[in-house]
């Protein structure tokens, strides 16, 4: 490791960013989290504690840490629920062990008892090496929160992972892959994580409209910047690059259902990596989304097929919204209600393959979206099979917590994080796995390829697209928001 001398915090002196550039990177860890501005500061332990202290002062984490510190029973039941531990059997992957590292630092540095104990019994100060170990430990976790289901005490290790990553990130330690994307989203020109410029988006949507027409012999539109729509649609911007069928399926459903909707032209990315590593980012991204919804006077925020973006908006817009409340709806909920209302006609003879469903952790862990996608699938899929376990107890795809965006840990995701999921899918014998989440889809596709499983990974609306029978041409004129026929053409001209 970097600190061969096991420096203590008091021995370290603050150093500037530039001075760190020459520090040799250790080769031991499979991947690193250090930002380019503050590469591997020699002061990581001090910065970590400073960040810890300031976050405790301004946030709600202190009572959690305090109560956890007094009650952790160390029963290790969580180990049996964690897919990462199941694959590695490495003690540092036990959720309780991971959380204990953070709780120990809290007790030692931020409680009177810990301070007294250090004075009386001697000290084991936080070192840079320990901070590195914590960083690695916290990013080996996929933040799927499966462990929280079986903790008899009710500890939420996902919350501690979230807090620990937040502390690390304010101390300058965060995965580069996430930070670079967020920088473009919040400080870049394109205001989205994949740097998709608006003209490219408009071109893509035009192409999708044409493609849909040739596929289904019916028109759909992707209405842009329509004011006063019932729903403003945000999806991971990567969908516009890679998930054409998901988007066409969604457009088909919304058109068939006569839904009034629009896509904003200033902010069109639902991705919020803040959920994975930083509350400040979480707040800012959600407020970008809220701002766009207000600008277009939309009544509801509609999130596409994405687990983390849906959870970030559903559960944190009420937290960070500084104005009138705006309801958040996931596209699966809306599609389900349209199906229930008899507005969707799905051909039951199109999808004949054996299909299974993967629950994205961020949709299913709290019991939010579990039955709706199954009801949709069962309405038109002939051979639907469940994987075990499923629903609230599903296993993570292995790319949760932002790790899917880190290409440098591809092997870890394939052989450790995603191993249990791969075995689950294999056991179903399914030919198609439905995963209504951009992150899950990316991870599962890589997983199927890596383990040579002949399984197609699709989104829920990809399958709906195959089965949907569109109403006649006159009906599709009702696609809401009173969008003008030439909304996309107008944008094309203005670019």
């Amino acid at each position, binding site marked *: 490791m970097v600190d061969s001398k096991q420096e203590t915090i008091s021995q370290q002196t603050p150093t500037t960013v530039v001075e760190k550039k020459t520090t040799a990177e250790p080769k031991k860890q499979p991947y690193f989290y250090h930002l380019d*501005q503050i590469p591997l500061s020699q002061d990581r332990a001090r910065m970590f504690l*400073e*960040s810890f202290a*300031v*976050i405790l*002062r*301004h*946030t*709600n*984490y*202190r*009572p*959690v840490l*305090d*109560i*956890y510190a*007094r*009650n*952790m*029973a*160390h*029963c*290790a*039941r969580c*180990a*049996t*629920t964690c897919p990462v531990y199941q694959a590695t*059997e490495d*003690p540092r992957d*036990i959720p*309780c*062990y991971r959380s*204990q590292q953070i709780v120990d630092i809290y007790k030692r540095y931020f409680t009177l008892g810990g301070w007294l104990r250090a004075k009386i019994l001697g000290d084991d100060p936080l070192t840079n090496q320990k901070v590195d170990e914590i960083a690695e430990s916290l990013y080996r976790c996929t933040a799927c929160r499966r462990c*929280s289901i*079986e903790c*008899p*005490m*009710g*500890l*939420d290790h996902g*919350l501690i992972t979230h807090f620990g990553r937040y502390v690390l990130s*304010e101390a300058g330690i965060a995965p580069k892959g996430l*930070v670079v994307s*967020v*920088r473009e989203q*919040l*400080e870049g020109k394109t205001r989205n994580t994949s740097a998709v410029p608006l003209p490219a988006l408009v071109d893509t949507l035009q192409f999708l409209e044409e493609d849909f027409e040739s596929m289904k012999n019916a028109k759909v539109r992707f209405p842009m910047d329509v004011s006063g729509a019932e729903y403003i649609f945000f999806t991971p911007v990567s969908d516009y690059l890679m998930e054409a069928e998901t988007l066409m399926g969604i457009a088909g459903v919304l058109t068939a259902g006569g839904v009034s909707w629009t896509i904003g032209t200033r902010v069109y990315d639902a991705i919020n990596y803040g959920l994975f590593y*930083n*509350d*400040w*980012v*979480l*707040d*800012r991204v959600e407020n970008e989304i809220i701002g766009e919804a207000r600008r277009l006077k939309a009544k509801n925020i509609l999130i596409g097929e994405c687990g983390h973006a849906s959870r970030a908006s559903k*559960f*944190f817009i*009420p*937290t*960070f919204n*500084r104005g009138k409340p705006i309801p958040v709806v996931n596209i699966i909920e809306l599609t389900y209600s349209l199906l229930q209302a008899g507005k969707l006609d799905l051909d039951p003879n199109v999808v004949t393959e054996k299909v299974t469903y993967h629950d994205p952790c961020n949709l299913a862990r709290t019991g939010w979206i579990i039955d709706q996608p199954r009801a949709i699938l069962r309405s038109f899929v002939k051979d639907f099979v469940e994987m075990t376990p499923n629903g609230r107890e599903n296993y993570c795809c292995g790319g949760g917590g932002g790790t899917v965006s880190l290409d440098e840990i591809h092997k870890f995701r394939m052989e450790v994080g995603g191993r249990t999921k791969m075995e689950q899918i294999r056991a179903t014998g399914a030919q198609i796995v439905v995963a209504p989440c951009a992150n899950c889809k990316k991870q599962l596709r890589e997983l199927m390829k890596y383990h040579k499983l002949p399984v197609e990974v699709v989104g829920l609306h990809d399958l709906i697209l195959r089965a949907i029978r569109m109403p006649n041409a006159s009906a599709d004129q009702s696609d809401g928001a009173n969008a003008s026929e030439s909304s996309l053409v107008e944008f094309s001209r203005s670019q």
Partner: protein
Amino acid sequence: MEELLDFLKGPLLPFVFMIFLLGLVRQVVLSTWALIEASRKAGDTNIPYGRVLRNIATWVFPVAHLHRSLPVFSYASFFFHVGVVMSAIFLREHIDLFGHLGLNWPSIPRPYVDWLALLALIGLTVLLGYRIYVRQSRAVSSFADYAILVLLILTVGMGYLAGQSWNVIPYNVTMVFHIAAGSAILVLIPFTKLAHCLLYPFVRLSSEIGWHFTRDAGYDVVKTLYGPEGRKI
């Protein structure tokens, strides 16, 4: 030995109960206050108390969960908890300790308490075995985890032995160990993980409230750490 027993049962016991009670009250007050503060600071104050309470109730009698992960450990833990709580609270001799305060409540007849104590002992032995022999359990165990188990085994084991006619250890000796270890447990409750005997509901509540972040806290953190100019992403 008799003097020691008299000391443990006499002047020490009220002192032990005082630390136990005051310590727990302090814990409950601090935790309640901290959670009230946190729920006030939350940006979204719509906290699903009903769901949390249902969860708490489910896990007080977690019969539906026991077989789901580490079943042997889980059943042992459940039977230990039932045995130790019931035998501690409903043994006639324990109730009589509070007689001079005018307190009294129904007791469970001795033979049944003996079975409960045996249940607790078996549970404790399995728990200790798990800590020692099962890798994942050993990995997360600290010295305190073992020490508490040993103290509990001493307390329950000696208490059980004291009531048996076949006990070959002198009665006073078993009682000294029983009361000394029991007193240690009572004193340790407010300062160790044993506090969960009363704080348990606060853990689930804090897990829920913890996700209810504070509005603007992210900005405040950045300003405090990096100055009014803030920082770039």
